[in-house]
């Protein structure tokens, strides 16, 4: 029960720190708003964009790409932000599993919130063509969760190497491509208002990838955490 206790405290600390500075959250939120606005301006250079036949496809894909880059920016901070001395302190009071678990849970919470907010902001600027809004919401939350599990481990690896920003992108994109493809497919189905059961297999695979990633993170982080 030590692990649960430690995780709980570390998670509380993460949330408290974020609540006090609101740096990561506001930063990424602003990032999302700016990106959406840039896209809005750029796409509306051509009049009548929202009546184009492929509007729905572009809407969906663009949304996921924005979320992808927002997630990279939000989660890259999770390990890079902490300075060396503070990390040393954590390592002396908590186990590696508690540290990585608390980071994953914190990132999951952050990303779910962010992706839902992003969807709302995005729908403000681009008219939402979704038929099955709740299912789309569910897909978006699921996407936020999957992004955070994958990126947490990658950011832990990237933070140990120099030249972080580039490395984070290089390391994470091959891993995230299958995830984002599944998500785009699922969300397109939600958009068209198709039967829910069509997506069950994809949800299963997504969950499978998440379980694999969390399991390998738990297995590998103890080797990674101290220099």
């Amino acid at each position, binding site marked *: 029960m030590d692990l649960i206790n430690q995780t709980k405290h570390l998670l509380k600390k993460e949330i408290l720190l974020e609540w006090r500075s609101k740096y990561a959250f506001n930063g990424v939120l602003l990032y999302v708003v700016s990106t959406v606005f840039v896209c809005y301006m750029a796409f509306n250079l051509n009049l009548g964009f929202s009546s184009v036949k492929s509007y729905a496809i572009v809407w969906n894909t663009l949304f996921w790409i924005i979320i992808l880059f927002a997630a990279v920016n939000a989660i890259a901070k999770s390990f890079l932000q902490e300075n060396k001395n503070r990390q040393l302190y954590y390592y002396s009071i908590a186990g590696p599993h508690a540290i990585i678990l608390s980071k994953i849970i914190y990132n999951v919470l952050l990303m779910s919130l962010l992706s839902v907010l992003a969807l709302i902001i995005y729908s403000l600027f681009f008219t939402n063509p979704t038929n099955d809004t709740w299912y789309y919401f569910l897909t978006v939350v699921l996407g936020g969760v999957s992004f955070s599990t994958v990126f947490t481990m990658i950011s832990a690896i990237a933070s140990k*190497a120099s030249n972080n920003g580039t*490395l984070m992108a290089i*390391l994470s*994109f*091959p891993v995230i491509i299958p995830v984002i493809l599944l998500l785009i497919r699922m969300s397109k189905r939600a958009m068209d208002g198709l039967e829910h059961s069509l997506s069950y297999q994809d949800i299963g695979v997504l969950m499978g*990838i998440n379980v*694999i990633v969390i399991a*390998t993170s738990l297995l*590998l982080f103890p080797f*990674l955490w101290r220099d």
Partner: protein
Amino acid sequence: MKFIYQTWWKLLAVILVFYTMIAGFLLHVPTLPILHETIRNLYFHVPMWMAMLTVFVISVWYSVLYLITGKEEHDLASIECVNTGLVFYLLGLITGMMWAKYTWGEFWSGDPKQNSAAIAFLLYCAYLILRNSIDEEQKRAKISAIYNIFAFPIMIVLLFVLPRMTVSLHPGNGGNPAFGKYDLDSNMRVVLYPAFIGWSLIALWIATIRYRIRLIEYKRNEIN
């Protein structure tokens, strides 16, 4: 590690590969529409992936060993296995693309299997870049071992799980039957299975030679 200095399995590899080259071009193959004689590419395309998988598995094994023991040799073995595996990866891609040109009409038709293979290739390129970005030897060895273990299951998902779930032209994927279905009299297995073993051993041989060169370099640079 005594195994890598023995000769018998290298001889076996050479004999098996020569056998598959000769038998692969001469033995009878089932006549099928579209495929025709290109079906013989099966003896060369699939074994490349088998060889790649063999050295990648060994590489993961040595990455795990490195994390447990911290011996530098294990890191060298792991990276050389990945290097060799990547060569076979490329060969597998190229043979597949040539085959695709004659059967599917395009070198690259955006088939899920091809796309997955390209993504998994990026995954391993990222591994090489990660290695080059860290100067300190032990840190590099540790972090790249971790990434290697992390990347392997994802590569498996990409190459062997995801394409099975979508519409793909590739045999064995997306509801298509694998070659086991076509080859009713199991004639092709006589060549295919030896080819698996032969090419896997060849890959292993290349990896061990590169590993031994690295080991000599490492020992020469050592400060006594």
